[in-house]
């Protein structure tokens, strides 16, 4: 494995790991706050138990997310010093604001986790809300920094020099809103489906039904609302990408030839060498229509870009198909859920629906990972779109592959331990909380 590939793999691994923990860390506090709100309003112990159980999940995920995030802030320099040397001052603003938001989140979490029975109950509840809100703000800021790499703004560039720097313009680059919206909805959908799925499985197994039913409902409503809104945000993002990063869109869609009346490709294996697609299913004119609301819209294909400027088309296209496919499954489940909810209220008796939810448990996070691959691999060969190539930004230090192996081992072990902890938290629900069985 050469150093460049090792550095990219290590970065990809670290982000893929961190993204799960940060999504849960920013979304679960909202579930927790809703359940806590019900407890304060109704005084029912079951909501207190759900809140406490979820808050332990938040604590585990936050602790892991905090260290993997700290690692990332160092890895930017350890792996991409040339990039950071130039980019640091330009896109550092969202990171410095994120530092504040993250700090507030950590403080609020201290109040929340250790504050039971110590403060005014509504103040305690409010600190939980602050955990969620500041987590969400951190997420948005970090995505804004990533968006800048896709849509560089707030500086001028000539002869390898960056000047006329404007950090505020860099932060509010063209991509920040569409990316942040898409990521936030994705975080809600992914975390919601994961949490709802676990509780659904417990109901199916007839364990602590009241506890799991109430918990399921809170998570499922968040998840399904986000999953229904997500295609709208996805549509907005795709139009945005077509406009800003046509090469990325072409790779996402496996489109080699520029043209009008371009069909939408579903499935298919694009081959970058022969510039053809095998086995795909095409909807005539649909891509042109989706981009420009008219089938006569021209869509740029990869043929517009010299070979060294093209992203890896196979990975980008497959990841995009996976993301959209999973998104559609979740959309379907969500519509079904609201329909059942509207038709009759005792939906928890419908075991097939709960089984369906149990099945969707990992789908949201699979879609998040796939989406992240689309945006990162689709930006290649650039680390800073159109300005700096990833291979020119990598550290001069040799032997990065060993660091990659080390990170792989560490992150796999951590994933195993976190899974064990969650399993134990769920298994011990009847013991930890005084629940009538």
């Amino acid at each position, binding site marked *: 494995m050469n150093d460049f590939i090792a550095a990219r793999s290590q970065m990809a691994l670290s982000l893929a790991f961190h993204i799960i923990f940060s999504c849960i860390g920013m979304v679960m506090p909202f579930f927790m706050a809703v359940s806590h709100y019900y407890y304060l309003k109704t005084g029912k112990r079951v909501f207190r138990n759900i809140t406490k159980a979820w808050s*332990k999940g938040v*604590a*585990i995920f936050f*602790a*892991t997310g*905090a*260290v993997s995030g*700290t690692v990332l*802030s*160092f890895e*930017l*320099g*350890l792996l991409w*010093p040339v990039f*950071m*040397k130039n*980019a*640091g*001052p*330009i896109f*550092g*603003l969202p*990171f*410095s*604001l*994120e*530092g*504040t938001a993250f*700090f*507030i989140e*950590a*403080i609020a*979490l*201290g*109040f929340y*986790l*250790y504050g*039971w*029975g*110590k*403060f005014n109950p509504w103040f305690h509840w409010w600190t939980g809300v602050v955990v969620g809100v500041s987590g969400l703000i951190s997420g948005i800021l970090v995505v804004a920094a990533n968006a800048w790499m896709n849509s560089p703004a707030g500086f001028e560039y000539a002869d390898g020099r*960056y*000047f006329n*720097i404007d*950090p*505020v313009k860099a932060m509010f680059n063209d991509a920040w809103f569409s990316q942040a919206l898409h990521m936030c909805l994705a975080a809600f959908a992914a975390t919601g489906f994961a949490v709802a799925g676990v509780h659904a499985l417990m109901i199916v197994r007839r364990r602590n039904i009241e506890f799991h039913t109430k918990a399921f409902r809170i998570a499922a409503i968040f998840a399904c609302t986000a999953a229904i809104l997500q295609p709208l945000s996805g549509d907005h993002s795709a139009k945005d990408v077509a406009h800003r990063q046509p090469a990325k869109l072409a790779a996402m869609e496996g489109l080699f030839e520029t043209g009008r009346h371009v069909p939408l490709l579903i499935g298919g294996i694009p081959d970058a060498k022969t510039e053809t697609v095998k086995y795909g299913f095409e909807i005539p004119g649909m891509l042109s229509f989706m981009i420009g609301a008219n089938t006569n819209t021209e869509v740029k294909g990869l043929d517009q870009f010299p070979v060294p400027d093209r992203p890896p088309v196979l990975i980008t296209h497959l990841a995009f198909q996976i993301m959209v496919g999973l998104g559609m499954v979740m959309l379907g489940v969500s519509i079904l859920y609201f329909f059942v909810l509207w038709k009759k209220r005792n939906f928890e008796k419908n075991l097939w629906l709960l089984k369906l939810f149990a099945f969707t448990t990992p789908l949201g996070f699979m879609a998040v990972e796939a989406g992240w691959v689309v945006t990162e691999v689709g930006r290649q060969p650039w680390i800073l779109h159109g300005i700096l190539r990833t291979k020119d930004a990598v*550290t001069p*230090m040799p032997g990065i592959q060993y*660091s990659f192996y*080390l990170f792989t081992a*560490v992150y796999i072990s*951590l994933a195993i*331990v976190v899974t*064990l*902890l969650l399993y*134990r*938290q769920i*298994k011990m629900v009847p*013991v*930890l909380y005084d629940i009538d069985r």
Partner: protein
Amino acid sequence: MVYVVIAYLWTAILLYLLLGGADFGAGIIELFTSDNNKNRTSITMSRTIGPIWEANHMWLIIVIVILFTGFPDIYASVSTFLHIPLLIMLMGIIARGTAFAFRHYDAVEDYMQVIYNKVFRYSSFVTPFFLGIIAASAVSGTINPDAKGFADAYIISWLHFFSVSVGLFTVCICGYLAAIFLIGETQSPEEERRYIVKARSMNVAAIASGALVFLAAAYDRVPLAKWLFGNPVGITAIAAALISLLLQWILIRKGKRIIIRLLAGFQVTMLLVATTFFHYPKIILFSGERYLSLMEHHGDDKAIESLALALLIGSVFILPALFYLIYSFQKKPSAE
């Protein structure tokens, strides 16, 4: 504006050393506690440090963000030439942060606790040790940006007696801070006596490793004595640190919990003043008289300006909340 950013950078380093340091130290104390008392120590620790645990480590993130936004050349060259110690330190941070949370939130108490505890204690030692190595290497003149071979560029840059001795010294300082902190948090006189003994032995260890730092500096030709004692600020700061140390020895037995904490904090602050003043504003000293300076090598002015504003706005939110958090849990320690 660059002065505002530098002031925040220094303060964040100080607070990380004091709060994060005490936090590392608690793990170090656990490591050096006899097996019979290990459990008691870890219970006292999670009771007292639990609520502010995550916040203590945020200072490191603030330091890093200031470096890469405000001083990108410094960030890039540190992370290139000190890649390996940074990597080991990061492993320590991962291991420690997760082990601490896991041992508290594992719903089943079994053999896994043994693993969490081991990982937590050893990483509590390793992390500040490498932080010390990194800090020492930055000023020891051993980084050679033109080095060609792997060992010259990426190993010799940080592996030498001076850096290792500073690493040990950092570990002892952390342990000492934690012992002083824990003295005020105990619930029985017997436990309190135990921490007083710990504080004293950590102190002796700190003085011994401090002496080692001077020997190593002489061996590695780092002009440490000239730096520390060659200017009035250095001399004053070192003298103040020594006086404060003496006072702590006298007051430690008299149950002056808050005063000894303040004195310990003051002592460490003075040490940081003495060790940073002599080469300010230079922050990285390469081999052969080359350097990176906070004044000459800061990032674009616009970036510095927005960073300073972000820090000022941030501290309006962070500081009151943090003080209230610490105050609340000092007044009524957590039951969980």
